[in-house]
């Protein structure tokens, strides 16, 4: 039995969830204000669309879209959870995600399309995982052996990816007619199994299932295993970990490579999806990478809770797309995301305030019942 599982229904668990809810609420309030202030007449219906995820317009078909949006940010979100818990602030999500995506595209175009059945999509997926890890390798080495701030290191690699991406696309997989990467061969796309039936969406596939399984596995890794114990120890107190004989360099490398691999997987799953997507020739960082940070913040660094965080953000994204009917830009979703991250930054403070407030209440209750508070 784990220590956590044995814990009674603890007040601190409440406050963590509560502070996430406050963050969400804060984000929504800001979004509401921005919408109403920019266009008072359309602001309210647009906001309603946003927070209902467009379900009253798109119906159940939206569930498939929701899963499609949730898949990449769940992967990058879990990637951030693993890295943050180990004390590594991996901001390289966009780079690792895009490299993973490109690796999946290239592998399926040049190599795996003629392989026997499941390998057609399994191989590109594995290559995308590998590619994501490779892109995290150098920032990891720089952090572990040269003490280079990992935030700076990974950000620099995002930009290096951004510039090289266009070069690579141009040389290997450019569809000049459409100005984007070439389409993935059909056999290389992810299988669909029962997903279309479940979501009433023809192009739903098993991407979300893979992502959820990966999230659960990462949770088990962090909470139940020796490696998880060491990674978290390094994240919580690097000096004490060193004192206990934990090899910090090795753990930095493991956590950042794992994190990069998960981001790469996100890129692979998205670009091998049945719905299909492309990389365009634009100097831009992949938003999916940054949104992982928001998912992780919402989930309070727990890979398990990240599932809900990712679904929630995807829900908003779907709503945000429908909102364009009212002439609003979907960037508003990023504004909400940023507010959520902002609130998460002082969640500790929020938690303390909440705990204080709750304790005061508890004390008063105890006074009434005459219990001695110890």
């Amino acid at each position: 039995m784990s220590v956590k599982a044995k814990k009674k229904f603890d007040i601190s668990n409440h406050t963590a969830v509560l502070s996430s809810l406050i963050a969400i609420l804060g984000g929504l309030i800001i979004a509401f204000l921005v919408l109403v202030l920019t266009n008072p007449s359309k602001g309210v219906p647009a906001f309603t669309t946003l927070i209902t995820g467009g379900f009253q317009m798109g119906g159940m078909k939206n569930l498939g879209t929701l899963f499609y949006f949730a898949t990449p940010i769940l992967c990058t979100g879990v990637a951030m959870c693993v890295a943050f818990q180990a004390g590594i602030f991996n901001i390289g999500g966009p780079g690792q995600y895009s490299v993973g995506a490109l690796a999946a595209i290239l592998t399926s175009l040049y190599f795996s399309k003629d392989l026997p059945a499941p390998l057609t999509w399994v191989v590109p997926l594995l290559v995308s995982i590998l590619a994501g890890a490779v892109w995290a390798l150098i920032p990891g080495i720089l952090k572990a052996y040269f003490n280079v701030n990992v935030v700076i290191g990974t950000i620099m690699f995002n930009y290096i990816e951004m510039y090289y991406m266009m070069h690579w696309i141009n040389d290997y997989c450019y569809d000049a007619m459409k100005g984007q990467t070439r389409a993935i061969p059909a056999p290389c796309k992810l299988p669909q199994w029962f997903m279309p039936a479940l979501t009433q969406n023809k192009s739903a596939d098993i991407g979300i299932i893979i992502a959820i399984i990966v999230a659960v596995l990462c949770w088990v890794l962090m909470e139940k295993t020796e490696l998880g114990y060491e990674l978290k120890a390094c994240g919580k107190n690097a000096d004490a970990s060193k004192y206990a004989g934990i090899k910090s360099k090795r753990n930095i490398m493991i956590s950042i490579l794992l994190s990069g691999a998960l981001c790469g997987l996100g890129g692979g799953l998205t670009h091998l999806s049945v719905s299909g997507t492309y990389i365009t020739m634009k100097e831009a960082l992949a938003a999916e990478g940054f949104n992982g940070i928001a998912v992780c913040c919402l989930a309070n660094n727990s890979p398990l809770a990240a599932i809900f965080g990712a679904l929630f953000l995807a829900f908003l994204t779907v709503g945000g797309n429908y909102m364009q009917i009212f002439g609003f830009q979907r960037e508003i979703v990023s504004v909400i995301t940023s507010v959520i991250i902002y609130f998460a930054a002082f969640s500790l403070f929020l938690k303390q305030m909440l705990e204080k407030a709750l304790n005061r209440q508890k004390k008063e209750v105890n006074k009434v019942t005459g219990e001695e508070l110890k």
Partner: protein
Amino acid sequence: MEMFYFIARYFMYFFIPLLVVSVSGMFSERSGVIHMALDSVMVWSCMWGVLCLQWLDGVVAGQMRLIIALLFAGITGVLLTLLLAVAAINLNADQTIVGMAMNTFAPAFCVFFARVLQDGSEHLSIRNDFLIEKIPFLGDIPILGEMFFCRTYITNFIGIAIFAISAIVLSKTRFGLRMCACGENPQAAESLGVNVQKYRYAALIIAGFIGGVGGLMYILPVATHYSQTVGGYGYLAMSVLIFGQWRSIPLLGAAAFFAFCKTIANAYSGIPFLNNLGLPAAFYKSLPFIITLIALAVTSKHDRAPKASGQPYDKSMR
């Protein structure tokens, strides 16, 4: 020789904003607040500055239009930086995460806002009539005149002035002495009656203003329209700050070094030798980022970061 002048001018275009924005970061970090959001301040203030230029077009003529827009950009920079200030100073926030939140916020909001403003297009155009062909007298100095005082912008001189004044403020004034003490040992400062929160707010307000000005300075010489990006300049400025070890004079050298890389990256096609090497454009474009990493790898082992930087100052924990 023409090539040399060309490179020198190009160099200044990159050098000045990098210097100014890293000075902004210096104020923040020397007072004890990690400023990961330099990029967002640049993106945000750049938009407001460009908008201000548009509003003033036809109202105010000549360099005055630019100066007012710079001031306006600075003020908007302060407003955005206050988000960091409140979170870091009052709410004991994780300053890195706040920075990331702001970096997510600014580009998204600016796209949203620009599109609302212009019904769909996010690109804001800039009418740039600020280039000074030749400054009287100074422009006639041999070599130097051609390098620095011809085909130049007023922002170059404002940038140098900002750096010089900042360096003096930090090292020679009461404000600097107290502010830096807040970044090194806030408990010590507080015990001598220095209000740490007040000084950090002051530092962040200055940082916000300078950062905002730097945002607009960045875009003028290098672009004809604004499209919600400053090319990762905020992050480069952070690297300059680390490379310059948070100290004024080394900062000057670090900024010059990075600006030189950036100049090569952008002007290589005009330099026959580099153009003939046949390396992809991507290589030159990512060169400043690669060099940053190498430079940091060499210098990061022993950093002289302000000791209290990034730690929330909790009055009750003495």
